[in-house]
């Protein structure tokens, strides 16, 4: 129960003013600019875009500055801004096969057409703090080599040719949209993928890890992981045809999962899929593992009762804005609620005390 009370206005105004001052920090240190955040904290920007579900690096950088680096608060700001935008339409599905790859690796095949391209990865760094970065350093320069032009084919295509992996048949059903219609169960794969791509990275990582540790194990290999730019193409109603409206960076992960066959499917490899805004490979791999775990029913596997197999559990708890909204609301005034709890406890204690006194007397 809630009761409206007044009186906090001046306190709230002062709190906001102090927040602004604290956000700025020590004024003898130069202020952080939006382009600095966009260019130098790029992976934070990418995470805010992915979970905020809006691709706009400048807005994400602004949100990070405003939220003092609290990424979930920044995601909240982006989600709120997103709702103010009129939607002009939907893009044609992006063609990740035509991606200009910055990175493209496969854990299943060593020699594959297009090669293993490491890209700007942390993978082979020693995870030792680099104190040179603390000093203002010289401009780093990456080596270059002549590139082979043309698209890099997907690894799953090779397995596909032998019929060893389930197909992902082309389909043009318009997908459901959880930003337009409330989430309803059972959720089909398109809806699950939308929920997962904007899901909290930590939650998705935890669930994916739980499948690896045996809670709904699905024997995943990273068939391919690629990061790079793809064109965004959209049908323009007044033109009557599709045009490219820009370009976005995506991370795509396709897992190849061992599968012994089931009542309905032959033994073959199955697939999990992750596709995320920006450079976010931890998230993309996690998404692919959780996607695969949630597919138990369509593949005729047993439900072993693992959290990652429970669509309702996963989808209703994956969104960090919903979660933090409900979680943090309990710090807001619940004076009346608590008052009634207090009365109840006092009453129970009185009754218990009365019984004890009575027992002692007897």
């Amino acid at each position, binding site marked *: 129960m809630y009761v409206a009370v007044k009186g906090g206005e001046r306190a709230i105004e002062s709190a906001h003013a102090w927040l602004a001052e604290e956000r700025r920090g020590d004024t003898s240190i130069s202020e952080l600019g939006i382009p600095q955040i966009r260019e130098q904290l790029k992976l934070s920007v990418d995470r805010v*875009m*992915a979970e905020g579900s809006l*691709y*706009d690096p400048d807005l994400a950088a602004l949100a990070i500055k405003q939220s003092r680096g609290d990424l979930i608060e920044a995601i909240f700001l982006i989600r709120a801004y*997103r709702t103010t935008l*009129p*939607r*002009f*339409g*939907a*893009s*044609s*599905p*992006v063609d*990740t*096969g035509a991606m*200009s790859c*910055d990175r493209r690796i496969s854990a299943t095949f*060593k*020699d594959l057409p297009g*090669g*293993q*391209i*490491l*890209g*700007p990865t942390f993978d082979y760094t020693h995870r030792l703090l680099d104190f040179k970065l603390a000093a203002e350093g010289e401009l780093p320069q*990456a*080596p*270059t*080599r*002549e*590139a*082979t032009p043309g698209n890099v084919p*997907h690894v*799953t295509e090779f397995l596909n040719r032998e019929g060893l992996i389930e197909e*992902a*048949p*082309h*389909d043009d*059903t318009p*997908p459901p*949209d959880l930003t337009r219609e409330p989430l309803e169960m059972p959720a089909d*794969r*398109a*809806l699950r993928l*939308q929920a997962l*791509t*904007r899901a909290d990275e930590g939650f998705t990582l935890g669930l994916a890890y739980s499948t690896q540790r045996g809670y709904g194990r699905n024997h995943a290999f990273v068939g391919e992981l690629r990061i790079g730019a793809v*064109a*965004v193409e959209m049908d*323009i109603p*007044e033109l009557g045809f599709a*045009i*490219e*409206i*820009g370009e*976005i960076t995506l991370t795509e992960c*396709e897992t190849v999962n061992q599968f012994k066959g089931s009542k309905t499917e032959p033994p073959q490899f199955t*697939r999990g*899929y992750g596709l995320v805004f920006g450079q976010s490979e931890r998230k993309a791999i996690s998404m692919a593992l959780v996607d695969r775990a949630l597919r138990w029913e369509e593949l005729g596997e047993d439900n072993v009762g693992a959290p990652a197999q429970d669509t309702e559990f996963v989808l209703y708890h994956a969104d960090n804005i919903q979660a933090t909204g409900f979680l943090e609301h309990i710090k807001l005034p619940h004076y009346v609620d608590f008052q009634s709890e207090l009365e109840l406890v006092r009453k129970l204690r009185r009754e218990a005390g009365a019984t004890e006194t009575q027992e002692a007397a007897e």
Partner: protein
Amino acid sequence: MALLAKAPEGRVAALLAAAMARPVFDWLRAPEIGSAMVRGRAGGTGAPFNLGEVTVTRCALTLESGEVGHAYIQGRRKADAEAAALVDGLMQGPAAEQVRKAVLEPLEAERKDRVSKRAARAAATKVEFFTLMRGED
């Protein structure tokens, strides 16, 4: 239109200004900022799903000579959308060849340069496997 949409901020207007006086036009739709839902496909090739939105600026105008120019470009960039719609309109009129040479061709060359510089960095990180030893179990 793809080149106009992918050009860096201010670049289309700068190239157009260098080529000719800014044409006179009327708005059919003044620049407005909105979004487009980006879709992907499950497994890269399967059924489409909604990935998330991208900010988009669009506008439409008519030139004095009657041609209609449209622009849909990624981001929140009203001035860039206006310049892109002007170029789109001009490309349908007598100045098409001039605009192609002065605006589109430089944009294409600059874009190729940006893409190939990035691809060259990626190519330098390509792994060249060689076998150290091969034994019989």
